[in-house]
């Protein structure tokens, strides 16, 4: 039995290493860029297959008129530069993950960024700077990036430092456990347990009140936290529902239990001083929500692991701080 387990986990770590090498190669420019991402699966029209938004969604996406882009504005600077400079991630499946084969970044956050780029420039040209969650505010204040698309939860305290357009997506914290665990059915069962969280995620601050008496261990990245759960360093992993769902899909050893127990409203982080740009981005969000582009992006990415159709997009300005 133990030998079986060893060989199983051994193969996984080998696969992880292989993926890491592939990602490194792709990042180094060795991966060919096929433009439209992975080929569309047959019999799944409208959806670009597993976690990929179809090219037709980009083709139909709106482009701002010249009247929307006044001279001297941030938008004009971006249009002149020819690409949108965003802060994001490369390792969040279904939200923003770099495809090791094509080198393109796929997922809800990444596709929203590309659509904003198309709206401003006319083509979905995005340069992604991977940033840690601890430097987002500093990057925006220094104008090192135009916007942050990184499941950036809107909070009133953060809103004193940055401007949030949106919310463009709502989700919430949920509980992931190992598949064979039947003792934990919801967040209420976490009291006295050891709980794994992602460092710098809302779970760090939400857990003490949602599950009093629980002990926290934090890991830097989502793959590390998942691995730690499977290696029994903790009893449960509290993370955003969308991330847990994609993690459960990739790792048969874990499952998501219960409903999300918080409501997180994700915003597009922008420079605090730039009210004009915030209004512009909010207008764009309104447009893509109304014409159905938002729903198509959701279905192509997060919708591929969540049952049921696309949810109603969150109302702009509905989160405290947006």
């Amino acid at each position, binding site marked *: 039995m133990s030998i079986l387990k*060893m060989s199983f986990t051994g193969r*996984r*770590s080998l696969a992880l290493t292989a993926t890491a090498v592939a990602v490194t190669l792709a990042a180094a420019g060795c991966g060919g860029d096929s433009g439209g991402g992975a080929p569309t699966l047959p019999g799944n029209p409208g959806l670009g297959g597993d976690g990929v938004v179809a090219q037709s969604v980009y083709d139909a996406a709106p482009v701002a008129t010249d009247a929307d882009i006044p001279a001297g504005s941030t938008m004009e600077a971006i249009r002149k530069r020819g690409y949108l400079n965003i802060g994001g991630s490369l390792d969040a499946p279904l939200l923003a993950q770099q495809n090791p084969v094509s080198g393109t970044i796929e997922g809800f956050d990444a596709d929203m960024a590309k659509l904003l780029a198309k709206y401003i420039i006319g083509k979905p040209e995005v340069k992604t700077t991977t940033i840690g969650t601890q430097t987002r505010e500093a990057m925006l204040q220094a104008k090192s990036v135009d916007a942050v698309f990184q499941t950036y939860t809107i909070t009133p305290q953060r809103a004193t430092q*940055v401007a949030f357009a949106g919310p463009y997506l709502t989700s919430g914290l949920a509980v992931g456990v190992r598949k064979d665990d039947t003792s934990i059915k919801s967040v209420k069962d976490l009291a006295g347990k050891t709980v794994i969280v992602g*460092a710098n995620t809302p779970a760090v601050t939400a857990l003490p009140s949602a599950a009093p008496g629980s002990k926290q261990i934090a890991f830097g990245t989502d793959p*590390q936290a998942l691995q730690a759960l499977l*290696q029994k*360093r903790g009893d449960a992993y509290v993370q955003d529902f969308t991330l847990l769902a994609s993690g459960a899909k990739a790792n048969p050893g874990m499952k998501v239990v219960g409903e999300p127990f918080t409501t997180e409203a994700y915003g597009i982080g922008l420079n605090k001083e730039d009210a004009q740009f915030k209004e512009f981005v909010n207008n764009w969000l309104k447009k893509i929500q109304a014409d159905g582009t938002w729903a198509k992006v959701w279905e192509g990415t997060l919708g591929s692991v969540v049952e049921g159709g696309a949810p109603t997009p969150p109302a702009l300005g509905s989160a405290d701080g947006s």
Partner: protein
Amino acid sequence: MEALTAHLSQLGHGLVTTVELTVVTTVGAMLLGIVVATLRIAPVPLLRAIGTAYVEVFQNLPLLALLVLFVFALPTIGITFPLFTSAAIVIAVYEGAYLAEAIRAGINTVGVGQAEAARAIGLTFGQSLRHVILPQGLRAVIQPIGNICIALLMNTSLAAAVGVVELTQAANNVNLVEAQPIAVFTGAGLAYMLLALIIGQVTGLLERRLAIVR
């Protein structure tokens, strides 16, 4: 400033963990360094090869990669240590390689005549090492050892990546609430600077007391 003062206890706990981690690893790395340096000058070729292999392996791997491997790869073969212990072992093993080289440099400053004289009066290799060579060799490299200890202190911040809540991770957690990275990390940076200055002062004191002027 308020971002810092409102979370002093959280940052304080992180600072204590950083100091604990630094002290434990410095002691461990020092012992390992002496053993490895001894191996590298041992009369037996196999022991010298082991010492050389140790230094080459651990000086040429990034500490973060070692930490991630130790914390996430070992459990796949059934070995799991608590996180603090894992971080302490890895940092001690890694810094041990650097200390070994500094100590070997110190040993090289001891005149050949000293070793020959020790052998002439009938001391074994172990005895001459313990009573003649190491005491002189270590005293010659107090300053470099102090510098490696300061680097070790800074390297403990990498333990944050594998779940140890030391000063850097505590600062991360505070920033998560306050969203003021510049204030929070300036505070943490000043705390690191203070600790490094203390190590520097202790090193300087030891240097003045113990160094052999040639």
